[in-house]
C-alpha cells in the first residue's frame, strides 16, 4: 500500500495508514527524497500514529529518510509515535538518534515553523 504524500505550504506530510511492508517503506523513502526538492519543500512530517508496531527495518528507514532529507536541504519530524511503541522501540535500542520527534501533526508543524523562523 502506498503512503499518500500531501503538500501543505512549504511542508510535505506523509501519513501512514496501516502497517507497511518493507517495499512500501522503500518506496516512501524514494518518493519523499525526490519530492522534497521538486516542490522546494523546507520540511517533511512523517505521521506514524497508525503504526502499532515498529520493527528495526521501519525504524532504520525513518532514520535514513530524516538524514537523506537533511542532505537534500530540509528538516524532518517524526510524529505520533504511540507510548507503547516508543517504549518497545527503546527496549530494542531503536532510539531514532538525531531525528526530531513530536507528539502529533500539530506539534510537528509548530516545530517546523519555529525552525523556519530561526533559519530564515
Amino acid at each position, binding site marked *: 500500500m502506498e503512503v499518500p504524500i500531501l503538500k501543505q505550504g512549504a511542508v510535505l506530510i506523509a501519513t501512514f495508514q496501516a502497517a507497511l511492508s518493507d517495499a512500501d517503506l522503500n518506496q516512501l523513502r524514494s518518493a519523499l527524497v525526490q519530492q522534497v526538492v521538486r516542490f522546494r519543500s523546507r520540511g517533511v512530517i512523517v505521521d506514524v500514529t497508525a503504526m502499532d508496531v515498529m520493527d528495526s527495518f521501519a525504524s532504520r528507514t525513518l532514520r535514513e529518510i530524516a538524514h537523506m532529507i537533511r542532505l537534500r536541504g530540509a528538516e524532518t519530524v517524526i510524529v505520533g509515535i504511540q507510548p507503547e511503541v516508543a*517504549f518497545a522501540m527503546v527496549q530494542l535500542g531503536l532510539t531514532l538518534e538525531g531525528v526530531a*520527534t513530536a507528539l502529533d501533526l500539530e506539534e510537528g508543524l509548530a516545530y517546523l515553523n519555529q525552525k523556519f523562523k530561526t533559519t530564515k
Partner: protein
Amino acid sequence: MAKRDESSELLRELVAHLRQNRTQLREEWVGRISETRLLTAMTKEEIFAEATSVYDSYVEALETETFEALQAYARNLSERIIPRGVETHEVVGIVLLLRDVLARSLFAKYQTDFKKLNRILDAYEPAANRIANTVAVGFVQERERVIRQQQEAIRELSTPVLQVRERLLILPIIGVIDPQRARQLTEQLLRGIRTNRAKVVVIDITGVAAMDVTVANHLVQTVEASRLLGATVIVTGLSPEIAQTLVTIGVDLGKMNTVGDLQGGIEQAERLLGYKVMALAEPS
C-alpha cells in the same frame, strides 16, 4: 519397628502426664512468660487464654504426631498478634519456654528412674523441637505474607503525574523503585505525556536513595521513549549513589538532561517552554 512402638508408647504416657497436670503446668508457663517479659503487648488475661489453647494444641500435636492442626492454629494466632506488634523472638521464646517447663516436669516425675527419664526425653525432644519449628515457621510465614501485602499496597499508591504549567509535567518519585514499579511509572508517564500534550517533563528522584542497574537502565529508556513522543525530560535530585550507578553503567549524558534540584529543574523547563517568571513586587 519395636523402637517406634516403644516411642509412641512413651509419648502416650507423656501425654497422659501432661493432661493430668494441665492446670499446674499451664500456670507455671504463664508465670515464666511474664517473668521473662515476653508478649508485653498483650494483657495478662489474653496471655492466659492464648497459653491455654497453645498448651492444648501442643499436647494434641504430641499425641497425634500430626502438625497440621497446630500449623493452622499458629497461623491463626500470628494473624491476630502480628498487628499488635508481637515480635518473632517472643513467639519463639514462649514456645521454647513451654518446652522447658514440660521438660522440667518430666525431670521431677522420673527423677528416681534415670533410664526411663532418658527414654521419655528421647521420645519427647524430637517432637517438641518439631512443634517449636512449626510454630516459628508459621509465624514467619504469616509475617512475610503481611509484608508482601504491604508492598502491594505501596505499589498501588501509584506515583502521580502532575501538570504544573501548560505542557509541563512533574513526576515526583519517592521510595524504593523495583523493576515492576519502574515499568508502571514509565507507562503512566508516557500516557500522561500524550493526554496532557506535554513538551517538558521533570522527573524528580530526590526521594529515591539508590537504584540498581536494571532500574537505572529503565530510567534512561524512559527518557529516550519520552523523546520519541516529542517531550524533553529533565531529571532532578540525583543522589550521589545514583550518579555513581549511572556513571558505572555508562549512560550517554548527552541524552540525559539533569539538574541538581527540583526548583532548578522547573526553572530550566520554563526556559525551554519560553516562560519568563519574575516577581511583580516585593514579597509582602
